[in-house]
């Protein structure tokens, strides 16, 4: 079998490899992509506002995803700890999804509305003052980085999210930290949840 022409013709070989690689790709990737099942959207879900989107950008920029997940699995202890398990329709405006792979810190899928804004501001300044044994870096320095409203507007346009002009002007003077807090507060809020037991 090793003497077949396949092992003597690199182009033919490459074509066969391409086909072999594409079979699983078509079935598990391209086919579902064509179906509604991969594009669910919860009724209560709204696109991000300019400030929230700017916060999501900061979340991506700082690599928060390296330590935090944003998806609660439908497992008993996990629902107890974090709240209602994640639904497919919650993420329709997340490009990319930010579910993450590692919980060095806790899951954030139900963080929205759990604490007041001031809690987040202070926690970002100094996580260790809340939890002495936390290993989260301090992020207070983000308040020195002012948002650039025209960048945020360009980002809103790229995603096709609706916004009012005064939402853009309202960004003047806001910092990356303000934006990050606004983003924290909206995560997971499209799902109404029974309160989680502890953090």
């Amino acid at each position, binding site marked *: 079998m*090793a003497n077949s022409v396949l092992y*003597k013709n*690199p*182009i033919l070989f*490459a074509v066969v*490899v*391409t086909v*072999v*690689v*594409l079979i*699983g*790709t078509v*079935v*598990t*990737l391209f086919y*579902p*992509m064509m179906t509604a099942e*991969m594009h669910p959207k919860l009724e209560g879900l709204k696109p991000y506002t300019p400030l929230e989107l700017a916060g999501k*950008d900061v979340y*991506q920029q700082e*690599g928060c*995803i*390296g*330590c935090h*997940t944003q998806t609660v*699995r439908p*497992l*008993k*202890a996990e629902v*107890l*700890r974090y709240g209602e398990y*994640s639904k*497919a329709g*919650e*993420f329709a*405006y*997340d*490009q*990319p*999804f*930010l*579910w*993450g*792979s*590692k919980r060095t810190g806790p899951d954030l899928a139900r963080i929205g509305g759990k604490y007041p804004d001031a809690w987040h501001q202070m926690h970002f300044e100094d*996580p*260790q003052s809340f*939890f002495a*044994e*936390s*290993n*989260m*870096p*301090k*992020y207070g320095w983000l308040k020195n980085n002012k948002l650039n409203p025209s960048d945020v507007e*360009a*980002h809103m346009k*790229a*995603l096709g999210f609706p916004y009012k002009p005064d939402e853009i002007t309202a960004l003047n003077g806001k910092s990356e930290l303000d934006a990050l807090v606004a983003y924290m507060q909206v995560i997971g809020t499209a799902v109404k949840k029974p309160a989680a037991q502890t*953090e």
Partner: protein
Amino acid sequence: MSDYQYDNQTVKGFILSSIFWGVVGIVVGLLLSIQMWSPSHNFPPFFTFGRLRVVHTNGLAFGLGIGAIFGISYYILMRLTKRPLLFPKLARFHLHLFNVAIALAAVSLFAGMNQSLEYAELEWPLDIGVVILWVIFAVNVFGTIIKRKEEQMYISLWYIIATVVAVAVLYIVNNLSIPAGLFKSYHLFAGVNSANVEWWYGHNAVGFIFTTPILAMFYYFLPKSTGMPIYSHRLSIIAFWSLTFGYLWTGAHHLVYTPLPDWIQTLAIVFTIFLIAPSWGSVVNGFYTVGADWSKMRTNYLTKFFIWGIAFYGLQTVQGPTQALRVVSQLIHYTDWVPGHVHMGTMGWVTMTVAACIYYIIPKIYNTEIYSEKVANIHFWLVLIGQLMFSITMWITGIQQGAMWKAVNPDGTLKYTFMEVLSKNYPYWQLRTVAGLIFTVGMLFFIYNIHMTIRKGKALVAAKA
């Protein structure tokens, strides 16, 4: 041999670049490991854990990994086609472009330009650069093979071709995005769909960067350094085709219990179990090859690098499928178990095998012998100990974490807060830093050995001239 001189220098350039980026990545890894138990070691904005973690993964997967893959594949290519590269100048340009791209990649990640797609963090202008690098590689690979002076294509060439094809498809699809500025873009795909695309890519980046090109090296250099032919050609054929077929179905094993449709998860888990077979095809082939004369493990210093490397690949490919099972995933997913898995593969299989290839190639280029087998042996034992210590401590941490997260009191409340679980990790994370240091010292012995071999080789060349 002189025909090959120019190309050999290109190969050497890739190897040295790969070592350089490897050092950068490993130093960043050490800092990361410290930050996990000592948050005061975060230095904003550029040196915080979140930004550094991607410098570490990209630096090692793309700098060390791809650099070595380009260089060593070129070397293998010339030997198996019995001719120099078809486009030597292009290959040299490839080398320079590679280093520019990796340097820019590192800078952009430090600066926080991050698509937040694991192993595809680079922003769109750099993605275009990566595609250009890949096209150049493909042109030389196919060109040289087409103009070869040897009729049969040996196994290693199959794996190189598969790598070229698969990585191109994976990288382009997952990086499709909507630019929103020069340094910012959004994934073309949203939500569950975005997740499905990303992990189809993510798992196959492991498959076609950390597996197939490394197998190409293994199949070429194991017989070369031991002088023994591969045990079974038929087994290599079956293993090759079932691996390339099976890999692409399995990405969703990373998304077990997430909102991704269940049928995709289940299908992925089934194919993941199936992957044990082709993976072990190569493991068995390696062991039986050396099985013809086990004394090689003692008499030939390179044999043990390859055999331990493929042994870790074997362990990795049993552990991986086990992790995909729902009952196991619910416990270890999101925990430190996974970095334990990852580093057995990257330190034990990839870095070990690549180092052995470099030990073989550098003396060959200079027509000399390795500077010191003794130093190579010290290197071997240190990286082995460092890696085992790293992985084992992380497996223990991971199981403990997973178990404590799900522990429930008789009255139905949670037993531990998140902080209580976290604080239990500190001793293990500190041990991991020690493990990383041992591994790093091992790598320094390796670098010293290569440096001295090159010095010796250059002196020989000068003496002849």
